[in-house]
């Protein structure tokens, strides 16, 4: 139709008016640290352990042989400086995290069926491993942080022992997935693990369900 002959130039004009050009930009910002994830609670490192308080759970519990979770799995990307250690029957993944002067921290990834006693029991188990008193149900929310990503809900903890010499720190994440629970635990010398915290948090961000083939 003749009367529609002016549509194309009109449309072209409107299209041009709407174009947003992608441009390279440059700017100066105050010094930034490499990213960490939100939601971390400071460790209760300076809270003293009451005399005679037995550690809750304890290493023995962590070493108890239990069946690992089967079924769908999680995948992750570890930082380049973490050294892959041989996997074991218990561990889904195992890394050595090197530090200064030959110090080394251990990153373990384990998975178990069910909820393994629940979040509080597992948090207290880790607290016991660094000689911290167990938490009550009401204290749990303030001592952990939660991350939601890739369809997963991660409960993240950062606990350091109160001892001055040879102090130990645990960075951990508890991840309910499918019918099981996955544990990501970085444990080692306080200073080394604290320094590795940004890398651990970034590492957690890469955790996601295995994409079905």
């Amino acid at each position, binding site marked *: 139709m*003749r*009367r*529609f002959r*002016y549509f194309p130039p009109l*449309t072209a004009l*409107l*299209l041009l*008016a*709407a174009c*947003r050009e*992608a*441009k*390279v*930009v*440059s*700017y*100066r*910002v*105050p*010094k*930034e640290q*490499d*990213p960490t994830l*939100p*939601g*971390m609670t400071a460790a209760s490192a300076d809270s003293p352990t009451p005399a005679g308080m037995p550690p809750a759970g304890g290493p023995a519990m962590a070493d108890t042989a239990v069946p690992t979770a089967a079924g769908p799995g999680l*995948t*992750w*990307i*570890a*930082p*380049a400086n973490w050294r*892959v250690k041989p996997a074991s029957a218990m561990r889904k993944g195992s890394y050595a995290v090197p530090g200064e002067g030959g110090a080394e921290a251990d990153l373990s990834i384990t998975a178990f069926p069910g909820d393994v006693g629940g*979040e509080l029991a597992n948090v207290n188990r880790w607290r016991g491993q660094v000689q911290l008193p167990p938490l009550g149900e009401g204290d*749990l*929310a*303030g001592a952990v*942080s*939660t*991350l*939601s990503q890739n*369809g997963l*809900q991660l*409960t993240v903890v950062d606990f350091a022992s109160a001892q001055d010499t040879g102090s130990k720190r645990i960075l951990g994440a508890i991840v309910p997935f499918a019918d099981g629970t996955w544990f990501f635990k970085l444990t080692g010398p306080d200073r080394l693990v604290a320094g590795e915290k*940004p*890398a651990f948090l*970034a590492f957690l*961000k*890469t955790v996601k369900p295995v*994409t079905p083939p």
Partner: protein
Amino acid sequence: MNGLFRQFHDLFVSLKLTVTLLVLSIILIFWATLAQIDLGIWGVHQKFFHSFFVLENFPGTEIPVPVFPGGYFIGGLLLLNLICAHLSRFRLGWKKAGIWLTHTGLILLLIGELLSGLWQEDYDLTLDNGETKNYSENERDNEVAIVDATDPQFDDVVAIPEQLIANRETVQHPKLPFRVVPRLYYPNAALQMRRDAPDAPPSPATQGMGAQIVATPIPLTSKEDERNLPAAFIELIAPEGSLGTWLVSPELPMPQHFSYGGREWKIVMRFERRYLPFSLTLVKFSHDIYPGTDIPKNFSSRVRISAPGTPGREVLIYMNNPMRAGGLTFYQKSFVPTAEVGSERTTILQVVRNPSWLMPYIACSLMALGLVLQFGLHLAAFARRRRAGSAFSPRESPAKS
């Protein structure tokens, strides 16, 4: 009236055009509603409403062809139609003041929507209790940031939009002593450690952590609760030769460090950032519930806004009560849920820059005023005629209004 003007006039004042456009709008909205199942709300906005034409790939090819007028096209023509018909049909006068105001309001509303579509920028600002940030992030778009981190006080950042990486455009920026050459780009990719995929082909990456990782392209997603995570292999080429190829992806949030020319550099692909002229600290996020229930009562974020050289102030942002500062509006958008309701500590604020944000308010005020005036004038005329009629014959029916 010459022929050209007459053609424009006849076309744009035509009521047929109005009806045609309204029918097309109905079809567009219906189609877009169905398409939302696959595309999600954001994808539908872009494909159907913030576009001049709805594009579909020609069968069997990747060539997009227009198949239906989009929101901008229909809205733009409706606007033109409304203005032309109005100018052509209505004359200025007190009796028509209400119609004039109502139509002007409608025209402003349409223009405002167009300008919002063109100018509005949406970003997110995620803050944990006690955390301070001076930038917001766009979780839909990414950028490759190359940072000169040599100075202990500040970082010099060159940010390259994902679109340029996708177009494989070589970037030579005055602040970079090397060229940035995108070698490979996947709009959505799955990354996995090479040990988990021993049969994967060798990585194009020669530097950083890319050599240990296998990047596999996967189909694009438009679902509400998913996002595309692109990956790119970027080669940096200095005058004396290649510095290497890095794998970058928002899935690798830790910047990869390297040295060149006596300076320390970082390269990372991240959510596109928009720096703010001030910083925001989350003092406290609150998720209030009705006592004894898990029913939400209120979501609010108490933030401290501080700019260099100012004392700073605290502002409470809650639903329907945004904070406006520096040409930006901060809405309470969402939060990161925790296992226990009420113990959340991470807020997500929506940061909107919309230079035309006032237009809908002005438009709606004008339309309301116009309608009140129009109905008021009619009512007054009706009452006057009724009074006049009843003076002669109480049984006579009222005059036509």
